[in-house]
């Protein structure tokens, strides 16, 4: 899918277009700093286009709002919009000046965009977007099927949450975080690993929600993510000094001390995000309470 071009982008030396010149962005010129990195915009537009084409063709064949409902499409659109806010709007450029802005961007990438996009049912839209021949070829491809089987465990809640958790913690080590700020390719890799692992994580919850048997693992994954994310954010909030010296006194431009900027960043990471995971977990738990048919012995002669 579109992930591939992004990976290729990383492999090409010197190709990474700085989303800004890395210089501080103040309140007066913030609206002039839009980021149009073709390596990010192209796959984004491609993905949105495929989804739109899929939905249009599906609706043309099944009827308006059939197959993928209107609210789902609205959710996808909202996700797409937020993704644009995160990666194209001045928020991206501001991330070099304010840790808070950078953190908001990350929170959008891991906790807001993925659930919105996935609620839009992109998996259902994609087959309709592709030419029939491609679809058939993909269906027949033994290689794809093998790849699917080999990577299936990554779509189980606990492995996905573990992977996502590792990405979240590793990138906050000062050396890596600052390396991403210095080098645009590393920066893209950082965002990519946040976003891809978050998509895996949220997709694993979506899949797990289909059966009550997989719900406990999904709820555990959501809770553990909330918990360790909380630990990480507390470390950032309570640090008595700036952890990422790269920012220096850039936040002064916005009337915010470096430490206050860091605390705000930690709080945004900790508090609102926790509520996202909380809602997700409660929504998953609600599925336990759907009335089930009464137990019938006749259906069960043997325990397994």
């Amino acid at each position: 899918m579109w992930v591939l071009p992004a990976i290729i982008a990383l492999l090409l030396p010197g190709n990474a277009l700085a989303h800004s010149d890395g210089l501080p962005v103040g309140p007066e010129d913030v609206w002039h700093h839009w980021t149009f990195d073709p390596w990010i915009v192209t796959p984004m537009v491609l993905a949105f286009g495929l989804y739109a084409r899929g939905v249009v063709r599906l609706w043309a064949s099944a009827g308006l709002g059939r197959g993928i409902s209107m609210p789902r499409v609205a959710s996808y659109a909202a996700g797409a919009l937020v993704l644009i806010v995160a990666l194209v709007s001045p928020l991206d450029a501001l991330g070099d000046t304010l840790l808070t802005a950078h953190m908001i961007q990350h929170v959008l990438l891991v906790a807001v965009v993925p659930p919105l996009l996935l609620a839009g049912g992109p998996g259902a839209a994609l087959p309709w977007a592709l030419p029939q021949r491609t679809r058939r070829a993909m269906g027949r491809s033994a290689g794809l099927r093998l790849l699917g089987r080999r990577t299936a465990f990554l779509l189980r809640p606990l492995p996905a949450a573990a992977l996502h958790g590792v990405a979240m913690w590793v990138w906050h080590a000062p050396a890596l975080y600052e390396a991403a700020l210095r080098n645009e390719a590393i920066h893209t890799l950082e965002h990519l690993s946040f976003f891809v692992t978050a998509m895996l994580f949220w997709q694993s919850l979506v899949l797990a929600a289909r059966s009550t048997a997989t719900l406990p693992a999904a709820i555990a994954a959501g809770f553990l993510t909330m918990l360790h994310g909380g630990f990480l954010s507390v470390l950032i909030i309570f640090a008595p000094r700036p952890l990422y010296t790269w920012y220096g006194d850039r936040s002064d431009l916005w009337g915010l001390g470096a430490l206050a900027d860091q605390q705000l960043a930690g709080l945004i990471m900790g508090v609102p995000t926790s509520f996202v995971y909380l809602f997700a977990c409660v929504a998953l738990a609600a599925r336990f309470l759907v009335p089930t048919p009464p137990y019938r012995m006749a259906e069960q002669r043997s325990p397994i």
Partner: protein
Amino acid sequence: MSDTTYEGGIADTRARQQDTPVHLPNSTPRPEGELERLKQVWRAPRGFHFLSAVNNNYVGVWYVGAALLFFVLAGALALIIRTQLAQPEFRLIGHDLYNQLFTMHGTIMMFLFAVPMVEAMGVYLLPNMQAARDLPFPRLSAYAFWAYFIGGTAFFTSLFFGLAPNGGWFMYPPLTSYKYSPGINADFWLLGIGFIEISAIAGAIEIIVGILKTRAPGQSLDKLPIYSWAMLIFALMIVFAFPAIITATLLLEIERAFHWPFFIAEQGGDPLLWQHLFWFFGHPEVYVIFLPAAGMVSMMVPTMAQTPLSGYRLVVLAIIATGFLSFGLWVHHMFTTGLPTLSLNFFSAASMAVAIPSGIQVFAWISTIASGKLQMRTPTYFLLGFLFIFVLGGLTGVMVAVVPFDWQAHDTYFVVAHFHYVLIGGMVFPIFAAFYYWAPTASSRPLSETLGKWVFWLMFIGVNVTFFTMHITGLMGMPRRTYTYIAEMGWGTLNMISTLGSYMIGLGVLIFLVDLAKNFRPFRGENAGNVWNAGTLEWLPSENYQTRSIPIITSREPIWDQPNLAEDVKAGRYFLPGAQTGGRETIITSPIDARPQYILQLPGPSWPTVLAALFTACFFLGLTIKLYIPALVCGILAIAFVIWWLWGSDPGPAVDPEIDVGGGLVLPTYMTGSMSHSWWAMIVLILVTGTVFACLIFSYFFLWTVNPDIWPRSGEALPWFGWPIGAALLYVASSALIWFAGRRLSHVPERSSWPTRIALILAVPLILGAVSLEVLGQLSTEVRPTDSGYGAVVYMLSSFQGFFVTVLSVMALYTVARSLTGRLNRVRRSTFDNTHLFWHYGVAQGLVALVVVHIFPRLLG
């Protein structure tokens, strides 16, 4: 029996399946001698051996009794405190004893009364409510009870030697570290409470597995009693919250004993680390106490109003949401520790959010009361009293969640008033309601309605007189934890009123004890029956084996909705009407839809369990009073008795590997893998240890953010990279051997079981070697644990892993011993499965520690 009948109700809030009559699996009359056999199998031991009883009807009642005892004791301490404060400059007790008294009052009420009490009620009630014969690990609950009771009693007696802790119930360092608290008073707290928390965790594991795996067939999660839901969330919260306090007490005790400076600011520690760990436990603790009580209320209100609970689903979701939320809010106990100002708004707002799920429950109760016909009996009085007091406590809670107000009221009697309203309202009143409500299930006579109303009015008026007044005393500026005050402050009258009120509460509790003495008659093999016309399973006719047969459930209030249920259950027309395996047994069901999976053979009375608890308590007591040799002996004895007790707990399949429980449903008598109850318990244990480990990792990073300068910047202060790589390789190799052992075990007995044994034995030196390499690597540098916060936390991680690996080694050797005695094979492999799960987890944990300790400092740039 009550003559009221159940009429209608809110149909949409419940699953009613009256139109689908249950097919009864067994026919009557039952064979001769079946009931006698069942009775005989479940008979409690007689005479002195009575103490070795393990089943929940005994242990649960003892457990409740012990918690009640500590409630009375801590209440007596409160009365001494109140007497001392009744007049200005009163000289009943000095300041040191006063400090010990308030520390002990708070500590006992929280750790020896509130948590054990709700856990005890769970041990007693849950199998009754889910029609299981017992909890899945009866000996574990017996162990938890005895450890708690013996340890708690020893802890309390420290007061008589002037050795009781005196640093406040939250024991903040640096006051409680070796410099300012050189006596062993603080050690009593740290070891005593740390130990009792371990018993609480043991109970929580039991409760989680019990709720998920031992239910009446058909009692799917959407039909689970609210109380079971509340206890499930309660126990899960213990699993995640209590490890934090265990970590904190461990660190502080090590700081006191070996001078590893975790909390000493001059040496790169930080006293705030204690506060974070303490409140990461302490905030959920509030809900740990409240949720079970709320769960009880949700059971009692529908019965007293004779109508199903309004909004069952919303209430369950509110309980779940409360559980989640409580882990995000610990910081609001630290508003005055100099937190970043910016953060206060966020945490203040988040604190308010918990009002939503609490509000949902309160409105559900009110709506249930409004939609039914409330019977004004004693439990109802306590329930209404609970609503009144708890809502008032909630209101002052909103006040102290407002940061500027909290700055003013902090550490004054306003806060004392607030949390007594919350805790007495939120926990004590529901518990008293529960005593009156559920006593008829345990006792051959219900408690007295007349005395009960006296108890209620004395307590209700007493609580309000005592604590409402304290709001005003606090606003007038009287600080907490001062043993006296001068008359000019003008606090004398208010204090006198509070003291009089507290005597009223004391009198109320005294009358309750009289009522118990007069009417409470447990262990008689009979009970007073369904006196309130309740709808849930604990009101089925029962004896020590619980219900004669295990019913199929199609509704949330089966007694109301399934006609003739009690009669059919008692006649043995449902599942498992006798002791089919020849011993104690119960049906294990699937965790979500409660379909029968297998028969669990339950263990019976056991002395080793009691002795293991006794020696564990002696071990901790010995450490506290610095008698190290006796402590060591007790420790070894405790381990020996635990192993003795465990030796019989993996019985393998019964004589008949499969048993017909009725209606042609044939269940195996032994199970391994993810369906088995022991697999679930092991997973929960892994969550517990994982949380301890996470707290240590948090401590590592927290100390780094505070004192980055003491972290090694480059290679020379860190061990050579070869050490951790060697350790990692040994870890992985040991895991591989365990994996290989598991593969080979699947082939036994076709092939020799020696490869399995050899692999298990070889894995032990490998994993011990891994930890040794890590420690040697650290020793090869200049860093020592007493040097700095860095040294302390790095060595602490290794020490924890060392402890872990020792446990794993014992488990591996135990598994080998099982194999050598022919108790381990392809089928009977639970022991191996547990070892194998824990082993891989331990290796993963060791690898994470290596990455943090050796790679993170190299990423500091």
